[in-house]
């Protein structure tokens, strides 16, 4: 057996360090919940449909500025719905500290946990994180009123994921589907 073959045999006797059981469990969990782990750059970018058949060019003017402002306001309103304050620069911890705790629920509704109906104990929870994902965007058509600039309606289906935490550190995941509408003026001249 030449020297390289001897070295090869020696290397084969080495066994890779076993994956620790907690790491194995983490990897397994990640594989089962891959939807929660898709890298940001792989998230689908849903483009608005192009105008057909006549190509229209949008010019950035007062109309588009107003539309952009409307989208920004919509986003701020969504944030207000979850945090109840107007300071987007505050950290989630600061916002949670300022919030009063959610009142205890006297008769908590039944919920579905892993396919089984169950009635959880009363729980006081505070919001921990909020994530809004665009699920689908579709063209809902053009609306025209006499004498006014026609607007194209876009329907945006969103899915809000809210994580709530109780005093014991237990985490509750809440998913809430929603619909948003955006209007953009259509250039006609």
């Amino acid at each position, binding site marked *: 057996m030449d020297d390289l073959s001897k070295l090869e045999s020696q290397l084969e006797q080495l066994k890779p360090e076993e994956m620790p059981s907690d790491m194995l469990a983490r990897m397994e969990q990640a594989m089962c919940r891959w939807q929660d782990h898709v890298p940001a750059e792989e998230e689908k970018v849903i483009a608005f449909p192009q105008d057909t058949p006549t190509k229209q060019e949008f010019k950035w003017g007062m109309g588009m500025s107003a539309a952009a402002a409307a989208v920004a306001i919509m986003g701020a309103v969504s944030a207000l719905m979850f945090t109840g304050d107007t300071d987007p620069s505050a950290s989630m911890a600061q916002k949670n500290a300022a919030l009063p705790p959610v009142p205890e629920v006297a008769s908590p509704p039944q919920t579905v*946990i892993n396919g089984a109906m169950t009635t959880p104990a009363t729980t006081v929870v505070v919001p921990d994180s909020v994530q809004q994902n665009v699920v689908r965007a579709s063209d809902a058509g053009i609306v025209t009123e006499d004498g006014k600039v026609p607007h194209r309606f876009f329907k945006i289906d969103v899915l809000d994921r809210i994580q709530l935490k109780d005093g014991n550190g237990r985490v509750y995941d809440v998913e809430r589907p929603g619909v948003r509408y955006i209007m953009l003026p259509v250039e006609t001249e």
Partner: protein
Amino acid sequence: MIEEETDSANNANNASVTTKWRPWLSEHGSKLLLFARQQTRSTQDAEDILQDALVKLARKVDEGTFEGGQEAWLPYVYTAIRRLAIDYGRKNDRRRLREEKVEADRQVMTGGAEQPWFNSDEVNEETSAILQDGLKNLPEKFAEVLTMKIWGEQTFAEIGQSLGITLNTAASRYRYGLEHLKKHLDAARKRGDL
């Protein structure tokens, strides 16, 4: 939809989780972790890359877009680990530099002891450490072929496909890698380290 994380719910979850991926992960996890460690500069990066690669596999399998059977999972994950490592290596961001510093600090605190890559009863600890050191100092293109061939049990054809090289190039790099390692061992013997 509210998901409450209780012990019973966790146990139910674990029971359903172990039926799908655990057997395959238990069999191949250690060799994939070794490859991820060889491809990256820090323990944390290796774990992150490995997790990302496994998530990619899980997504494709669950979405029904994975081409091939279970026998193709391992080569796919090797390829994914390598590509992710290249992307990580290209990022010159604070996070990566911070992770490297953490790894360097960890080595200082442990007296220079590195995270062991191998665990063997047949080979003594000294030889194992020297081989690990030799593998780390090999040119990457040799080290990755060696790692996939010896511990990943991949064929030269599979290695070539994963790395985007020909079968003959894979075989050549394997041989050159062994020669480099042999020189490293011989030098250690001359120094009296072995």
